[in-house]
């Protein structure tokens, strides 16, 4: 028996199809949008409501070893929700697809265990490469084809959706000698440079035709002067496709070792000039946060700042990770600058299809602050009120001082939270409401307070099921795990096996996640 539903009379925002608030019916059958339904199909009255595709989070941290360490680290404040709550809370905001941005090969099985227990949303992750022995050995001894095959194997073995590169080569260098190599510095004891890692992996991701390009966390995150690194990185990619993660953390001016300032304007211009580059913003929101990153250097830096808890972990043959509880404060000059830099990027954005929303949950703040972020973008008066509250020195030199007037429209919001992330991810059936799309839909009641509007959708549908209504879960369904299936030459396994035999504590088979290890646990 097919399940049908007609959503009637709503104002539809579907940027992929250039629908900007037109009154349309959306017809759903068996979890997909269809062109039409028989007249007797059940209806959901959406008159007066805003209808959007379910939102897609392109960069979050929701599953895997470091996320779970963070949960255990903070029983007293719980910034990082449990796995069941992650699925529920995302859904209650109208998000129906979520990607974890950083899972090491060795943590893939663990990440899938958590994804199996994550209800409601569709989900997946990007596997970490670029500081590991597998890629470094291939780069040193082999050809670009070898790197491509390592990448193909890694995505298949970990059942990942894409590939994430964090501080290319820098993680390995930090681990070996706490060094921070420049783009053309050879890593300690190696002939490989960050530039080589970067370009080879970007090329490999393209060669394998992964649906999402290389997802890159640039070097020198959080450090004064890192805007130069980011600009150099964009130049080094020579027009190859790349997605820059949490761009806000990489746009700082100032002297190395000094107080960072914002160079968001320049990065915005660079984004305009490079159509091959997309990014998510990594907005900082005031309040509690938990920093968790495969960039272990950042963990150490933040621990030195806070002097409190810190999890610092090394992973054999790969990098490691750092977890540090954090708090962003309005009256802290650096935090104010970070907050402003994110808003600058969004308000100066040359193309909403290439700069999308994220808080790098929970690094810049939790995903629960998305509605507040949307209000900041859409409501200038509210934004000005907030601007008046933050440390004034933090705003010096930022475009916020110029009185940026831009207010995002509902149409643009639908782009940066839905249509664009889906397109950047190569998700053909997400982020729009055309025929054949997954019937993931969020319906909002307009409200003068846009934070209120986006905090509690009136209805959320997942694969055609009415899963949430007015802030309560109505039915707990189970989403899919999304994975890419690039080809690779099995011969690469011999080389990988050699690396493991020399320096690992597991066999190659131990790295391979089985088909039976994904999908709903129950």
């Amino acid at each position, binding site marked *: 028996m097919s399940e049908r539903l007609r959503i009637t009379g709503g104002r539809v925002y579907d940027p992929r199809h250039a629908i900007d608030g037109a009154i349309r019916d959306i017809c759903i059958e068996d979890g997909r949008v269809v062109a039409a339904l028989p007249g007797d199909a059940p209806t959901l009255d959406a008159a007066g409501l805003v209808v959007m595709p379910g939102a897609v989070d392109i960069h979050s941290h929701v599953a895997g070893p470091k996320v779970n360490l963070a949960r255990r*680290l*903070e*029983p*007293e*404040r719980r910034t990082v929700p449990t796995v069941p709550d992650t699925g529920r809370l995302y859904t209650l905001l109208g998000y129906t697809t979520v990607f974890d941005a950083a899972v090491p090969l060795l943590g893939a099985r663990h990440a899938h265990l958590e994804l199996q227990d994550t209800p409601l949303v569709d989900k997946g992750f990007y596997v970490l490469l670029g500081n590991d022995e597998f890629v470094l050995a291939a780069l040193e001894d082999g050809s670009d084809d070898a790197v491509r095959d390592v990448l193909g194997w890694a995505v298949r073995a970990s059942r990942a959706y894409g590939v994430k590169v964090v501080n290319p080569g820098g993680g390995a260098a930090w681990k070996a000698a706490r060094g921070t190599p420049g783009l053309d510095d050879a890593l300690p004891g190696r002939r490989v440079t960050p530039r080589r890692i970067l370009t080879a992996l970007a090329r490999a991701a393209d060669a394998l035709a992964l649906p999402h390009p290389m997802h890159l966390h640039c070097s020198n995150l959080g450090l004064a002067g890192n805007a130069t690194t980011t600009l150099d990185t964009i130049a080094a990619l020579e027009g190859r496709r790349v997605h820059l993660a949490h761009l806000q953390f990489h746009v700082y001016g100032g002297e190395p070792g000094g107080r960072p300032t914002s160079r968001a304007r320049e990065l915005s211009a660079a984004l305009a000039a490079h159509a091959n580059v997309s990014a998510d913003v990594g907005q900082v929101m005031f309040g509690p946060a938990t920093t968790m990153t495969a960039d272990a250097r950042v963990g150490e830096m933040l621990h030195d700042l806070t002097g*409190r*808890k810190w999890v610092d972990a090394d992973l054999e043959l790969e990098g490691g990770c750092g977890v540090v509880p954090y708090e962003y404060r309005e009256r802290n000059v650096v935090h104010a600058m970070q907050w402003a830099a994110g808003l600058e990027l969004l308000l100066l954005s040359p193309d909403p299809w290439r700069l999308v929303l994220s808080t790098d949950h929970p690094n810049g703040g939790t995903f629960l602050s998305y509605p507040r972020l949307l209000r900041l973008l859409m409501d200038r008066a509210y934004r000005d009120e907030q601007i008046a509250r933050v440390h004034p020195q933090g705003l010096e030199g930022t475009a916020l001082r110029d009185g940026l007037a831009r207010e995002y429209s509902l149409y643009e919001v639908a782009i940066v939270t839905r249509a664009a992330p889906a397109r950047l991810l190569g998700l053909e059936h997400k982020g729009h409401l055309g025929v054949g799309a997954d019937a993931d839909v969020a319906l909002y009641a307009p409200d003068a307070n846009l934070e209120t509007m986006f905090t509690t959708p009136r209805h959320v549908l997942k694969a055609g099921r009415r899963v949430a209504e007015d802030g309560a879960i109505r039915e707990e369904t189970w989403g899919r795990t999304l994975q890419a299936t690039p080809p690779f030459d099995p011969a690469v396994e011999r080389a990988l096996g050699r690396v493991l035999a020399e320096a690992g504590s597991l066999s190659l088979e131990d790295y391979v996640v089985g088909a039976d290890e994904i999908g709903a646990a129950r």
Partner: protein
Amino acid sequence: MSEVRLTLRQAPSVALEAPCVRPDAFATLSEAAIARLPVEHGREVVALGEFFDVRGEHADQVRVEGDVRRVKRLGAGMIGGSLIVAGSAGRHTGAGMSGGSLVVEGDADDWTGLGMRGGRLVVHGNAAAAFCGAAPGSSRGMTGGLAFVRGSVGVRVGERLRRGVIAVGGSAGAYAGAHMVAGTLVVRGALGPGAGIGLKRGSIVAGGALELLPTFRYACRYRPGYVDLLFASLERHGFDVGAMAAGAFDRFGGDHADLGRGEILKWTAS
């Protein structure tokens, strides 16, 4: 002067979670409304009135009678008023309280005054483990107020104390004042092993025997002025400082395994 009196009618068969017993909350409630407040008896949520006879209403003076050793979280989070437990109280009594007066006339169980933020907490008998201690993971334990125990306390009294004063008439178990950040802990009797471990700042005033950790270093013998202020305050609140009213203190600075800006003042009669 009106008062709300709760008398245990039926002993709970397993622990009863009763954080609803708060004098500040009772101030605005009728007798019937108080009796309807929810408590958790194991997995069941039942009305307070199922277990207690409730007499009185609209008062922030509350007296609890009967054997309530299995009743947990009495007065937890209270912000004002007065709560008297006529006998011994269960775990987590007065946890997180930020104001008012809480008196346990008998003994107090584990985690009494956990994360206390203000007000006055008095135990006439003994208190068990983690008196005025810290919640798991929290960087700070008690952050304000005055708490004292006429009898002895168990292990880890005043862990991660941040501000406020804790006084113990008898002895203290192991790791008294562990990881204190600031504040003052006074123990008239002997202290168990590991007193002041991880002390960052703050003071432990020790009236009885104690074995110092090697990471404390001797400074001098004197009688710092604040001690007399503190003792005068304690006496005003009804805590007897005994022989420490005179004499001097040996000051040991530490814990040098940590920040090391705290002190242990060890009393000496001379």
